[in-house]
């Protein structure tokens, strides 16, 4: 502790929240609240979430991205988050790492999507050094040409957030809820999910990943762990969250519309 403190004198402060199994909706709510109402730098690591959940980007349309019949049948929760980007299915095998920073927290870093993405890849290059052929490919973290980490960002006037969902492990049947997206990175070359992604557990132990991530963060920030109970973050705030859990009615309506349109096009 002493050594890391002395090394970090002069670096900006970053508060670290370490969770395990916290519901992804609560995590997203906290993130957005910290982004918009805090003026400090934060790192949130959530080591797995509780139930399998589908998380779409801010402009995600369920009918286009999900196989709604199965989703409704299996009663899988669907969330629309406040950041851009694509759709993921998350569960206890997903590790989430989020950075919330003031725009001048990292010296020389311009608060735009690509520079932030590049900076994050430098940080994770330290984490994965010696463990696999890691790189940033378009906007994904890959080993070789298999994606294991998806990113999304939100940039406001003075701050930005960059969050990642890491596929430490996943269940093939959960991936089956997702359609092949219309908008995909070029390197995907129309591969289906199971051909496109890979499991991080084949490359490194889970605890090692978390520890190395924190160590990598320490090269940029003076990290201070804080205890934050997931529940209390939501109870006390009057903050209006953009991240929403879609209701069953909304999903049913979307499913109905899409069936209706298909029906129409067939009849024509």
């Amino acid at each position: 502790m002493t050594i890391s403190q002395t090394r970090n004198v002069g670096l900006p402060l970053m508060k670290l929240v370490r969770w395990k199994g916290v519901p992804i909706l609560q995590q997203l709510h906290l993130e957005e609240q910290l982004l918009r109402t805090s003026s400090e730098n934060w790192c949130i690591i959530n080591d797995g979430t509780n139930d399998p959940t589908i998380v779409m980007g801010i402009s995600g349309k369920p009918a286009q991205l999900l196989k709604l019949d199965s989703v409704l049948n299996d009663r899988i929760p669907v969330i629309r988050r406040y950041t851009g980007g694509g759709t993921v299915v998350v569960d206890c095998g997903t590790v989430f790492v989020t950075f919330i920073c003031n725009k001048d927290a990292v010296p020389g870093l311009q608060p735009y999507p690509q520079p932030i993405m590049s900076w994050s890849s430098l940080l994770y290059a330290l984490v994965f050094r010696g463990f696999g052929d890691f790189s940033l490919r378009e906007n994904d973290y890959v080993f070789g040409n298999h994606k294991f980490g998806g990113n999304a960002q939100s940039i406001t006037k003075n701050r930005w957030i960059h969050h990642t969902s890491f596929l430490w492990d996943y269940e093939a049947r959960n991936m089956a809820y997702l359609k092949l997206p219309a908008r995909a990175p070029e390197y995907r070359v129309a591969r289906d999910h199971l051909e496109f992604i890979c499991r991080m557990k084949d490359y490194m132990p889970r605890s090692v990943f978390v520890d190395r991530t924190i160590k990598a963060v320490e090269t940029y920030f003076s990290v201070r762990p804080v205890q934050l109970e997931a529940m209390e973050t939501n109870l006390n705030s009057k903050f209006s969250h953009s991240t929403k859990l879609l209701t069953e009615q909304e999903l049913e309506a979307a499913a109905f519309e899409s069936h209706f349109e298909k029906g129409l096009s067939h009849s024509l």
Partner: protein
Amino acid sequence: MISRGILQQKFRNAIRRWLRSCAAQTSPLSPSPVVSLGNSSYIGFSSQPIVSRYAMAPFSMVNDKLMDLNIPYTIKRSCFSSHALLDLPASGIVSIPLAQTGEGIAECELLKWFVKEGDQVEEFQPLCEVQSDKATIEITSRYKGTVSQIIYVPGDIVKVGETLLKMVVEESQGSNLTSDAPDDMKSMGAEVCDSSIQGSDLRNSNTGGVLATPAVRNLAKQYGVDINHILGTGKDGRVLKEDVLTHAVQKGLCKEPSSLSVNSVEHFQGEEKYSHTLAADGWQYEDKTVPIRGFQRAMIKSMTLAAKIPHFHYVEEINCDALVKLKASFQEENRDPEVKHTFLPFMIKTLSMALSKYPLLNSCFNEELQEITVKGSHNVGIAMATPHGLVVPNIKRVQSLSILEITKELARLQQLALANNLCPEDISGGTITLSNIGAIGGKFGSPLLNSPEVSIIAIGRLQKVPQFVDDENMYPASIMTVNIGADHRVLDGATVARFCNEWKLYIEKPEQLMLHMK
């Protein structure tokens, strides 16, 4: 269709009539009939002095582009008729495009608006949120103004460069000028200055200060004119070089008698030339604002920290004759074309040997905890001057590296530094710093600590100076001056002096290195 020549003549006659009446100190004339000057039409001239003064110029000095540029604008400004000024808001509308978000994104999806038509907007206020690929981005306003028209709705795809919305940007408000038409026409010269100043003042009071580059401000200072009194013809009311020159010329004209003789015109011409010459000089002394980025910013942070530490400096001269011979012999035996032997690796290795004996110089001080941590690894930082600024990468665990290994690692770091490709691990974790400022020049420097380290060594240039041996015999010796900067909270003069003696011994007598080698 009235030809331009006839129009000009009519206009000139109208002006002359008015001037005569002015000289007789009568009340203002009734407005002259509508005339056209180029493309502008004016309903009346309620402030004719200004018109007259400038009206002369285009007819007598058709070649003077400067005045041509200025006149229609100035007349507009001085035309205190509300109708004419109704045209102004139209020219105050600015189209706000979707700007490039710093990458090759061609289009974004508009997600939501934070403002609506009619809303007052401050500079830097968020206008809307867009999504580009993986990111949602808040677009903020460059201007202060009012939203006049929203072009896109949420869900639309907007190409980069397309107009997102239109805003009325605040500049001189027309309605304010109507009440300020001067009634008394004392002398034309005074009126010219007063009216233009009034116009400028009002403009100034609306915007709270003029927009102008440092070069233009400098120019205004040279002429002794108040830039806030100058009407800007640039974008957003920005004051340009031409505006300053014109204003200076006007001021000169102000002092002239009111007779509109050829002489005065010539004088005007003459002044013009003069001002142009000065302008040419003025451009040479342009200030430049440098944004603080990257290494510069890091340097500001670390030096601000260093300023809080109580430094002391210890200076010593080291005889490098043996080192020069050693380097020469290394180079002679060198078969590897990739490797180039320099003094630095040997100095780094001997430094590490000395640190083994005096480990306190290789420590870090934590002010908060009031703790000294003696570092186990000798991670020697080497200060490097790159085109991007000062950077200090370090060589890890020097105590376990050979001189050759240090040479190779140093070369690797130097290459990365020049290419601005150093990774965070290369520049963090240093325990002591070496600054070879002598490579550039200088006898010795007075280095500032690289916090949280407690010592730093600046090496001066190797100089051949005469040295005495025993009785008055002189011989030339390669002398290098070193300056050790140390944190006086951790180290005292005696410790640093002893450390330096040890290091000096290894450099002056390299064979001692072999004695202590493990």
